[in-house]
């Protein structure tokens, strides 16, 4: 059969890559696998043609054009994609070969966007190949006839697995795959991934512990060029995170060079700002510069994607929302605004250009402030050295497990022993203990220890036949609605008074707005009017005068590989060896930094002590990335505050962190008492988190996934509103009345492992305690300190009493609106 497929390739003027043939024959041989390769190198067809060849072998001579949907074979291939946005493109690419080869299959998509009509048809008969998201896959498990649905399933393809696997959606996928393998053991799983540092672990996580699999290395020899737009006058280039206007003209000229240009930013608000700046600089481009990010309404994004494909747009400013897409329209130019943050991500973004065979992929980095030049040089060095990041699977999140148990209880139901064994075949839950299992069952059945006395609670019910099921229709309905929304942050619709939904923004951003405030969203200047029915109502503003500078959006932390590379790059700089052009341009700033304070070598730990009218600042520079710094900052603040009662506000960036206090902190005494020691971490880290704010924030997601917080749905009645409370309030109630609740423990664990990367933190401390401390007292904040100083998102650590603290605080008066 492979010969027929190769013939079709030839007919189209293509020739099959050796790795594609390897995948096809492995598949026909009954193997499972993981394919990794650069973007745009034929990964989709490598995974897709195996199941087609299999069908052709089973049905010789049966090729014909399909006339009626109902005549197509039942579900044989499930294609899981992390983004709904990719589904439509994937559908097109999968259709092409079956149409040309005359395979009478149906290929359809099912996501949250699928029309009622098609859903109804799919309810009666699934297509032969179904493209869907992890959430929609999980929803299929709520059907009682799930076993029959998968009765002829042969192959599951998980696309862009690297994006899923370190997330709760990845864990959700692991659980769903374990269930399907239980229902249908012959099914084969093939993952498609970008290159990672730990492919073996990625493959095992996808396949589960009991499955052998093959790793297929795809086409990787594409040449990648990482260059940058350098600021002409470094002395006028900003030090802080807010870009000046300096880089706008060169970005405009890069776009002018012609072809289609993708402009990546690291945050949604940056995408908005750049879109606005480019439009302001070139009003004649108004119709041809698009904006695309995850908060924009589906329709808005669809339009941009369609325009990008048709060539109508010369440029799109975007975030990671356009990172993925094997078959996304090729572009001619890729710009990365701001630090690349990670090596793998930068390579992937570069891969969006140069799709022609033999053409190199190129990404041009545009620094937003001075020290980002170091990041760019470091990313290039790491890429040359082949230092790509790992992605780690998550370890047994109980919230996702609780949700899965309710899901399956709505569908076919489950028995405790069998389900425990099934769940234990996943990498994520391989260490799940009996105690944890019993707790989760108790949680979904009786609501946990604290509800034991309450008889009317019943989410999941144990039948006399030993099977756990959900019997209440309302509970089932509510659960299904929350599967679809588990990962969206508490989001509020943004809608124009004149009609038209623009997208969603974080609730926390909207809650800070006052009527009349202006902000930038969806490429428009908007004026906030009011909140009603979980919607922020807005109107078009005439200008952006006095606009709220930014809404939070996600922030990408620096990867460990890039952090290492940056430390190395600075060591070279300290000894005057400037290898890359970026470092040469930065020389005057580096010189200033070393004159005012110092540049740390790899075995040095720089600490700067500065006093300003804001108070006493301590800047520490471990160069370990934001996540580790958040943990270290809390730890250091805690350790210093053990010496004398003091309150710190904390700010971090990827290079270091700042502890700011109204009084002078006892730094020397703290260092003598083991400030930088890696001893006692098991005690000091949890103690430093005692302010619990971080755990509380992490609990937002857990509460949502575990089904505590129900976000409601359009037209929800009043009784739904009566059971709405913020997750913070839930946290407080649990902490006080059910302190042993394992979801609270999970929140603390997730903060340590995921947010603070505790293991990286310990390694960092071991490194830092071996380092020589460079303590300087600059007269004012140095070039390296400045970007941290201007960060407004801050945490507080305090050992003072509340009343002591209140004496130093005030409440800002509401100023007149307008």
């Amino acid at each position, binding site marked *: 059969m492979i010969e027929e497929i190769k013939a079709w390739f030839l007919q189209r003027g293509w020739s099959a890559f050796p790795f594609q043939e390897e995948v096809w024959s492995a598949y026909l041989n009954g193997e499972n696998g993981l394919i990794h390769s650069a973007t745009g190198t034929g990964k989709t067809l490598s995974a897709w043609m195996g199941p087609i060849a299999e069908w052709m072998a089973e049905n010789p001579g049966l090729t014909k054009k399909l006339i009626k949907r109902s005549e197509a074979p039942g579900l044989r291939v499930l294609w899981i994609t992390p983004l709904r946005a990719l589904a439509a493109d994937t559908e097109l690419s999968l259709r092409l070969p079956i149409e040309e080869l005359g395979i009478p299959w149906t290929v359809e998509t099912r996501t949250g966007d699928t029309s009622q009509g098609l859903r109804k048809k799919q309810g009666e008969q699934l297509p032969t190949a179904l493209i869907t998201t992890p959430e929609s896959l999980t929803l299929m498990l709520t059907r009682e006839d799930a076993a029959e649905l998968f009765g002829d399933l042969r192959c599951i393809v998980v696309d862009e697995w690297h994006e899923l696997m370190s997330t709760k959606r990845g864990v959700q996928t692991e659980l769903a795959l374990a269930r399907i393998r239980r229902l249908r053991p012959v099914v084969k799983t093939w993952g498609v991934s970008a290159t990672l540092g730990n492919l073996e672990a990625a493959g095992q996580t996808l396949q589960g512990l009991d499955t052998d699999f093959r790793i297929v290395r795809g086409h990787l020899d594409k040449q990648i060029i990482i260059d940058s737009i350098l600021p002409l006058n470094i002395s006028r280039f900003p030090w802080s995170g807010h870009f000046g206007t300096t880089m706008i003209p060169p970005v405009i000229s890069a776009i002018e060079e012609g072809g289609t240009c993708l402009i990546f930013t690291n945050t949604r608000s940056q995408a908005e700002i750049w879109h606005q700046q480019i439009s302001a600089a070139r009003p004649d481009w108004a119709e041809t510069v698009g904006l695309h990010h995850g908060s924009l309404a589906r329709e808005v994004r669809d339009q941009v994607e369609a325009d990008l494909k048709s060539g109508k747009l010369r440029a799109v400013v975007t975030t990671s929302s356009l990172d993925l897409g094997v078959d996304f329209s090729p572009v001619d130019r890729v710009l990365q605004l701001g630090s690349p943050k990670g090596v793998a991500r930068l390579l992937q973004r570069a891969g969006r250009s140069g799709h022609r065979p033999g053409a190199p992929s190129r990404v041009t980095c545009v620094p937003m402030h001075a020290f980002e030049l170091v990041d760019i040089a470091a990313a290039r060095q790491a890429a040359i050295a082949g230092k790509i990041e790992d992605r780690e699977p998550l370890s047994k999140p109980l919230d996702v497990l609780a949700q899965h148990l309710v899901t399956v209880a709505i569908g076919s139901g489950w028995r405790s022993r069998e389900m425990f064994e099934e769940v234990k075949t996943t990498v994520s839950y391989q260490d799940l203990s009996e105690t944890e299992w019993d707790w989760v069952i108790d949680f979904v059945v009786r609501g946990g220890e604290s509800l034991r006395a309450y008889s009317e609670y019943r*989410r999941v019910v144990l039948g006399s036949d030993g099977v756990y099921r959900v019997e209440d229709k309302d509970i089932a309905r509510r659960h299904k609605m929350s599967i679809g929304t588990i990962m969206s942050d508490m989001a509020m619709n943004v809608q124009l008074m004149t009609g038209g939904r623009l997208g969603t923004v974080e609730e926390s951003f909207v809650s800070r707005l006052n009527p009349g405030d202006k902000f930038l969203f969806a490429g428009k200047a908007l004026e906030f009017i009011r909140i009603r029915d979980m919607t922020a109502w807005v109107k078009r503003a005439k200008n952006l005068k006095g606009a709220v500078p930014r809404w939070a959006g996600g922030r990408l932390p620096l990867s460990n590989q890039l952090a290492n590379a940056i430390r190395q790059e600075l060591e070279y700089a300290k000894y005057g060896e400037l290898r890359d052009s970026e470092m040469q341009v930065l020389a005057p700033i580096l010189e200033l930094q070393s004159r005012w304070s110092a540049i740390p070598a790899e075995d040095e730990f720089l600490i700067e002590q500065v006093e300003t009218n804001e108070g006493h600042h301590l800047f520490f520079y471990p160069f370990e990335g934001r996540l580790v710094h958040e943990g270290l900052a809390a730890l250091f603040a805690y350790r210093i505050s053990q010496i004398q009662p003091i309150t710190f506000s904390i700010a971090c960036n990827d290079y270091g962190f700042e502890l700011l206090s109204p009084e002078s902190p006892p730094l020397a005494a703290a260092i003598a008492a083991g400030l930088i020691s890696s001893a006692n971490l098991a005690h000091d880290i949890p103690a430093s988190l005692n302010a619990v704010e971080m755990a509380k924030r992490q609990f937002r997601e857990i509460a949502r996934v575990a089904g505590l917080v129900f976000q409601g749905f359009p037209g929800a009645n009043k009784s739904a509103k009566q059971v709405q409370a913020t997750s913070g309030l839930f946290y407080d109630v649990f902490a*006080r009345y059910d302190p042993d609740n394992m979801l609270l423990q999970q929140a603390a664990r997730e903060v340590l492992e995921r947010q603070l990367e505790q293991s990286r933190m310990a390694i960092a401390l071991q490194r830092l305690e071996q380092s020589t401390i460079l303590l300087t007292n600059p007269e004012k904040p140095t070039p390296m300190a400045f970007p941290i100083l201007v960060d407004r998102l801050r945490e507080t650590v305090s050992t003072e009493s509340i009343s002591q603290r*209140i004496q*130093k605080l005030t*409440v800002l008066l509401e100023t007149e609106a307008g």
Partner: protein
Amino acid sequence: MVALPQKALWWPSRGTLFVADVHLGKEASFQAQSIPIPMGPTAETLNRLDALIRSTRAEHLILLGDLWHAKSGRTPKLVDDFIAWRTRHQTVKMTLVEGNHDLKSGKLPANSNFEEVAEPFLVPPFALSHYPEPCADGYVLCGHIHPGVLLEGRGRQSMKLPCFWIGKRVAVLPAFGEFTGCARVSPVEGDQVMVVAEDQVIRVPLVS
């Protein structure tokens, strides 16, 4: 009139206590929807009311709305606890100014021995309400919004605390109930804000 750290207002010359937004049975109304919230907030709220009545020796307790959270939260056990609590303070007169949650929860259980009144309920010079709307007939004492403020200071410090928000014509009490939380309010020139910080009520300066 004294603002107590127990989140109540105390009028010593009349022996009257004011409390807003008690939200009894809130956890049970969540449980009724199969949301696993632990029991305990209602019992703790009633315990705190016990302690407050004892320490002030109040003769009259006036609740400024939202005594019960929802009809579904009135489980037999919680109603029994509530009646037992009421019986412990038989000699204390109790008045409920009805709030939005009370209207939906229905009439109080039999034997509650409460005077149930609509807003505004006039006790000159005060007009007692649930909603924070100015009233021509008196200075308004009310609840409903569960007020809290964000305190900010040098070194970019901040903290959010529940508060008494006292304006020219309306004073809003913090929510008394355990499972209530607070919403940030925006005071204007001339207002007074007193935050509840552990066992103290502290007036905080307002700056522009």
